[in-house]
C-alpha cells in the first residue's frame, strides 16, 4: 500500500554467489573484529578513573545555605508536592529568637528527609523550589546494605557551612570552570 510519495524500498537483493559461499563475508567480519583488537579501548576503569558528569547531572540532593551559612529552606512543601515518587518528607518549625544565624526565614524545616531509594532523580523538586533551597548535585547516590541507609536527613543533605566548614565547602564546590570538566572529579 502506497500512502506517500516518500517511500523507498530497502535493498534486499538476493545473495550473490560470493556471498552464498559464507566465507567472504565472514572474513570481512573477522577483519573488522581484528581491527578492533588493536584499537584504543573505550573503557573507563570506574573506581580509579572517573568520567566527568554534566554540570546539570541529577544526582544526590543538597540543601542550600546562603552566603552566611543560614539554611534557605522554609519547609513550604512544594518539592514534596512536586515529587512523583513521594519520597520527600518534612516537618516545619518556627524559628525561635536567637536562631537567626541558623535559618534565613521565620519558618524552617525541622526535619527534612529524602528516601533515596524511592527517589527517581527527575529534578522536579529542584524546579519546584521557590526559595533557592534544594538542588541536585553531580554525585550519584551510592549503594548501601540496608534500607535505612537511604533515608537522607538534613545532616546528609545540607551543604557544608561556607564559613565554618570552609575546606569541605570548597571541596563540595568543586572546580567549576568549564575546563575542569575534562579532568577527573574528586572522589564522590
Amino acid at each position: 500500500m502506497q500512502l506517500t510519495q516518500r517511500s523507498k524500498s530497502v535493498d534486499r537483493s538476493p545473495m550473490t554467489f560470493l556471498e552464498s559461499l559464507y566465507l567472504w563475508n565472514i572474513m570481512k567480519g573477522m577483519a573488522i573484529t581484528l581491527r578492533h583488537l588493536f584499537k584504543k579501548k573505550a573503557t573507563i576503569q570506574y573506581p580509579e578513573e572517573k568520567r566527568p558528569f554534566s554540570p546539570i547531572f541529577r544526582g544526590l540532593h543538597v540543601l542550600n545555605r546562603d552566603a552566611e551559612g543560614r539554611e534557605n529552606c522554609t519547609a513550604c512543601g512544594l518539592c514534596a508536592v512536586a515529587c512523583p515518587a513521594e519520597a520527600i518528607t518534612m516537618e516545619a518549625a518556627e524559628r525561635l529568637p536567637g536562631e537567626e544565624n541558623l535559618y534565613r526565614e521565620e519558618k524552617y524545616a525541622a526535619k527534612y528527609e529524602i528516601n533515596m531509594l524511592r527517589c527517581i532523580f527527575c529534578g522536579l523538586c529542584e524546579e519546584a523550589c521557590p526559595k533557592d533551597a534544594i538542588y541536585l548535585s553531580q554525585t550519584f547516590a551510592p549503594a548501601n546494605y540496608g534500607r535505612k541507609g537511604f533515608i537522607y536527613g538534613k545532616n546528609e543533605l545540607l551543604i557544608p557551612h561556607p564559613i565554618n566548614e570552609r575546606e569541605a565547602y570548597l571541596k563540595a564546590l568543586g572546580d567549576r570552570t568549564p575546563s575542569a570538566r575534562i579532568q577527573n572529579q574528586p572522589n564522590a
Partner: protein
Amino acid sequence: MDFAAITLWFLLEKVILIAAIIGLSFFVAMYTTLAERKVAGWMQDRMGPNRAGPFGILQPLADGGKLFFKEEIIPVTSNRILFLLGPALAMIVALVTSTVIPWGAPVVTTTGTIALQVTDVDMGILIVFSVVSVGVYGIMIGGWASNNKFSLLAAIRGASQMVSYELPMSLALIAILFMTGSLKMSEIVLYQINHGWNIVYQPLGFLLFFICALAECNRTPFDLPEAENELNFGYHQEYSSMKLGFYLFAEYINMFVSSAVMATLFLGGYDIPFVNEAAWGLSPWVYSLLSFGVLMAKVSFLLFVFIWIRWTIPRFRYDQLMNLGWKKMIPLALFNMLLSAAILLWLKS
C-alpha cells in the same frame, strides 16, 4: 600386543608423560578461558578481566576456586547417576584424546629415545576419531538426565550435530592419509617435515576439517547445544558447582586438543618452518623443547582463531546446520578426497 617390553622405566616415563599432558591440558584450558575473555574484551573495545592479579592472570583460579566451593545442586527430578556421569564422561573423553599426539620431537640420546607421545599406535588418528565419537555421550547424557526440556533439546541438537560432522571430518582426513600413507601421527609429522606442510597441498581439506572441528567442539557458529539466547546454556543449564566447571573445562580442553590435532595433521606438527634445525647441532633436549614450543605456538594461533570466530559471527539455525553438514560439507569432502586421489594417481603414474 607385545607386553614383554614393558619395563619399570617405560612405565615411569609414560606416567610422567601422561601426568604432564593432563597438567598441560588443564593449564592450557584454564588460560584459554582467560584468553577468551581477554580477547573478546579487546575485540569489543574493552579491557576484559583485570582485577584478579596483574592483568587478571589469576582469573581462572578465582573461577575454579569459586566453583569448587559452590553448592552442588542435583535436581530432584533428574536421574542422579546419569546426572553425575555426564560431566565426568565429557571430561574423561576430552582428556583421553591427547594420548596419540606427538607433542614434540623425540629426544634422541645415547641411551635411547624418549618419544614425547604417550603411545604411537598404528591407528593413531583413528584413535582420536574413536574417542571423539564417544564424546557426544557427555552432552547427551547430561542433557537428558537434567530432566529439563531446554537441556533435552540441546542434547538432541548436540548429538545429531556431532554425529553429522564426524563424517566430513573423516572424509577430509582420508585425503591426508592418501598423501602420507600412514595413520601414525608421528609419521604424518615426519612426512610433513620432509615434504612440506599438508595445508599447502590440502587447503580445502584443512578448511573442512577446521569447520568440523568447530562443530565438534560446539563453538560458534555451531554452538547450538549451548545457544545461550535460545536454550539458555542448553545441556549444562541445570549444572552448578564443579560439575558445571567440568563441562566448561571439557569444552576448552576439546578446543585445545583439536587445535593440536589440526596442527599435527595440517600445520606440520612440531616442525619448525623455513629452517633446517637439524643443522644447528642443538642438544636433543633443547631441540625437543624447541619443537614443543613451536607446536604450542601453532596451537595457540588456532585457539585464537577459534576465539576470534566466536566473537565475530552469528550462529546457524538447526536445520541450516544440518543442511550445511550433509548437503555441502560431505559432498565437498568427497570431492576433495576423490580429487586428491586422482591427482596422486596421476602423479605416481
